[in-house]
């Protein structure tokens, strides 16, 4: 029976490792990929116009909201970001229904609600595009720390708009929780969103 002792020790050690691994994964704090913001105030509410009527942030309490400021003329940076969000939504599967992506136009003069709708829904039919008056957009952008500035383009492009290209994530309780900087991969977004959906 002497051979049983080392076997028992081995089994015990393996068990300890397994339980430790499970516990570490279960209880360690989640490390977000995005930049974490601990805001003490709820995210500023706003009401802007979509092709299907007015849209307010508070309409989506209980969902995780992704706010993105961009414009439809933008051929490179905006579609790159929207494509990554589209991929993140795919990665989330059924959980994606708990996420609302909203694109706010920083080019209200050229982006009509209809135009925005067609633009964002090309990427995902669940996406919403909103716009408003120059003043309304400026107010919302300021509240969210979004910089945007028109500058002269060419004859063909007309003016172009520099804009903060990060995504602001509002949690289910309505607090700004995360910033996804430009270039955040879909996998990272999906992991963070999944955590926010289940917590």
């Amino acid at each position, binding site marked *: 029976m002497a051979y049983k002792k080392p076997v028992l020790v081995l089994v015990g050690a393996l068990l300890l490792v397994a339980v430790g691994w499970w516990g570490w994964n279960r209880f360690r704090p989640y490390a977000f990929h995005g930049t974490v913001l601990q805001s003490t105030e709820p995210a500023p509410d706003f009401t802007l116009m979509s092709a299907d009527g007015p849209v307010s942030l508070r309409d989506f309490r209980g969902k995780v909201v992704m706010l993105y400021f961009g414009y439809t003329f933008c051929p*490179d940076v905006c579609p790159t970001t929207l494509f990554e969000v589209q991929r993140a939504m795919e990665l989330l599967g059924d959980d994606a229904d708990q996420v609302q992506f909203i694109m706010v136009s920083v080019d209200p003069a050229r982006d009509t609600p209809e135009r925005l709708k*067609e*633009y964002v829904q*090309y990427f995902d039919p669940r996406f919403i595009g909103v716009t408003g008056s120059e003043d309304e957009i400026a107010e919302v952008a300021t509240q969210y720390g979004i*910089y*945007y*500035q028109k500058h002269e383009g*060419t004859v*063909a492009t007309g003016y172009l708009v520099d*804009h903060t290209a990060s995504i602001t994530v509002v949690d289910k309780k309505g607090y700004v929780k995360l910033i996804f900087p430009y270039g955040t991969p879909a996998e990272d977004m999906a992991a963070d969103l999944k955590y926010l959906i289940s917590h």
Partner: protein
Amino acid sequence: MKRFIRLLALMSAVVVALAACQKAAGPQIQVEDAWGRPSPKVATAGAFYMTLRNTGNEDDALIGASSDACGTVELHESFKTAEGAMGMRPVEGGKIVIPAGQTVELKMGGLHIMCIDKKVDFTPGTKVKLVLHFEKSGDMPIEVEIRQPK
């Protein structure tokens, strides 16, 4: 046999001379992996991306492009502004220099060929004919496939 060796030597010399000529011929531009991003109809502008390789011994520059699929084609670049925002502007000096022996990548979030006033649907699988204009190498017709980013 002697004659054969002489012929062989002559042929080798010709080959070497030709190779030297080719090398001395200035810039040699190769276009690789040209693709365009799918975009909704309502987006007036589209973007093309590709890798430009100059295997020659002289610099060249992409100075423009044209396509029946676009009202206007311009060379643009996306960049990070001093404020930390993303901006887009026509390329400096109106051209993209491809130094001898080097490779320049036109890629998302950087240099790109912008197709303004799209005349065709940029749906995946569409092939767009584009003529690249180089400062020294002249015109180079290429075909660009519209596909999802990799």
